[in-house]
């Protein structure tokens, strides 16, 4: 028999490792200059999310969390990248720098600020439970959410914005698997397919913008505004 305390400590450390890398990919998404690299980072981040869900599932002995891990792997690391590559291949393989409002060093400084802010928001909540997973996943998930939101706001092109929104969902789920492991299965299934619909809808819209306007630099589309 394996000592349950030892299992817990090993799982906590493995989960902390996944969490640390998850935060790094969050920063990476802000710093990345190329579309394809951003997409690959998103895939890596999704794998880390699935890993964390797997560790938590092992600890809670929860079939739900295994399902989350499986769905994340299937949808976010296989299906969505494949769909995006098929729908908007020109945009993804274009070897040019992503247009940004702020340059990358400034962005990274702001990103550090956001990560600290995430810990600041999460810290009053961490006294609520004594579970080690929540203490790690909640602030990191929150930071992932805020970093990705910042990425969507400064990127001025369609595909990086799609990736940013998908990464925001990753952040929300990274916190969610720790705080709400018992969420009913149907809700989890629906949420997983919801992410898939986001990717399809935004991918199709990007393609249509590309056909109609000739570029996907959505930041330049500013004809609708108040005078």
């Amino acid at each position, binding site marked *: 028999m394996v000592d349950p305390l030892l299992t817990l400590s090993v799982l906590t450390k493995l989960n902390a490792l996944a969490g640390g890398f998850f935060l790094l990919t969050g920063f990476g998404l802000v710093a990345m200059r190329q579309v394809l690299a951003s997409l690959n980072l998103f895939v890596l981040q999704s794998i880390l999310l699935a890993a964390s869900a797997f560790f938590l599932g092992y600890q809670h002995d929860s079939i739900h969390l295994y399902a989350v891990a499986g769905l994340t792997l299937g949808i976010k690391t296989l299906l969505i990248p494949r769909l995006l590559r098929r729908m908007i291949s020109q945009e993804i393989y274009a070897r040019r720098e992503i247009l940004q409002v702020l340059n990358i060093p400034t962005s990274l400084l702001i990103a550090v600020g956001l990560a600290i802010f995430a810990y600041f*928001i999460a810290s*009053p*909540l961490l006294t*609520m*439970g004594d579970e080690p997973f*929540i203490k790690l996943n909640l602030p990191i*998930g*929150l930071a992932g*959410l805020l970093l*990705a*939101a910042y990425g*969507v706001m400064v990127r001025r092109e*369609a595909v990086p*914005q799609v990736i940013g*929104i998908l990464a*925001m*969902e990753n*952040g*929300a*789920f990274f*916190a*969610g698997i720790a*705080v*709400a492991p*018992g*969420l*009913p299965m*149907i*809700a989890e299934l*629906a*949420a997983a397919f*919801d992410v898939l*619909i*986001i990717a399809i*809808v*935004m991918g*199709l*819209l990007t393609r*249509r*913008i590309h056909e*109609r*306007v000739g570029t996907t630099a*959505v930041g330049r*589309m*500013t*004809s*609708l505004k*108040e*005078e």
Partner: protein
Amino acid sequence: MELIYILGIPAVAAGLSLIPMGRKWAPAITILGTLAGLFLSWRIATQTARGMEVVAVPNWISCDGFGALILLLVAFVGFTAAVFSWSYIDKIVAADNVAKIRRYYARYNLFLLSMLAVPAFSQVALVWIAIELTTLLSVFLVSFENTFEALEAAWKYVVLTCMGAAFALLGILLLYWGMGNSGPGSFTWSGLVAAAGRIPPPILQVAFLFILVGFGTKVGLVPLHTWLPDAHSQAPSPVCALLSGVETTTVLYALLRLLPILKKAPSIHGEDWFVVFGLVSVGVASFLLIQVKDYKRLFAFSTVEHMGIILVAAGLGGTAANYGAACQIVSHALTKSFCFFAAGSTLLVVGSRDIAAVRGLIRTSPLAAVALLVGGLAIAGAPPFAVFLSEFSILKAGLTNGQYLPAVLLALFIIIAFCGILFPINRMVFGNPIGNSAPQKPATTTILALVFAAVPVFLLGSYVPETIHELLRLAAFSLGR
């Protein structure tokens, strides 16, 4: 069982719309489907008005008085907008492009389905998914005309509201955590109210702020409103009626459902957040209204204003203000959809969204002109229309409660918005016509849709049917004391 049918009918209608059977098939199916939906939701309304809860699947799909009110509104506007679509979509789509008409009606039905699902679901995580789907299923309706501006509007719409949805998702997961901490209970609106006193206030506070920001984006609260005037002006007019009239309302409904939970934890000051966000929205929208140059944007900004008014009314609290908030939800949804039908008929006659391009509409198209005038007066809050009554009751409740500052500010902003809406409409309707466009005969379905939509706008200004009154009372009650 009615709830299941209500959700099932639009799904079936969406599938049937795709069958290639000529130009009239899809619109006919859609009108029949929405009519059946309206009939069923009226039955649910009469049942819930007696104080019962209509349950289809316990803890998952059920509907109380507040939910039935929203369900009825969505079904009604869904029906009138389907009637209005008949000739509108026929005119804007090229004669040989029948497939585009089929796609429109399939998307229309799916969008309607997602909006009906919001009040029909009682499980909070599913409500979040339904709200997210209202965005995703309406994106291609916003970009339907495929112009540069429509695509820009659709992109802003999907990016901003999906960002909001991610924030709201985290908020809802935190809420679930808070409930789990407090012991067993189902994760439904009523389960949350029952467990509210036991949810640790710090968790509730953070969850509330995330949900407020997330759903607030979709409701169009200032400063998260930037996408709303774009999307609500570029979509085809019947879709605008749905977006502005009921889509914002369904999301606001989810936000208002949090109010009784927040009232159990006084340290969070949930009501004050509502009042402040609401007043900022009303104020900014009323000043932006003055300088708008596009008449569909005018009505879109008026939606931001009205969402703010409802939020302020709900935040003021007390039985009278809550009742006013419920009335305002109903009168806004009905009046705003009518306004967009009027704007749509004007657009068909004039061919331009520019306020300056329309003069003396009363000579070229009397029907559109009268509709625009009535819609403008009704939405601005002139007596004897429904909005006047609800705004008046909100202000009166605020003053009798002794909340003078918010009530006076609200009155001031409403007066500014009143002028901002009616001056441009006055210029469009009266004055000397530009050019010499011949008077045009409106389509029968356009007249029908305008008449259907106008009936409650006039009626609720003077007489509220017993069932509706009961539903309003129940809705006000479920906002908490």
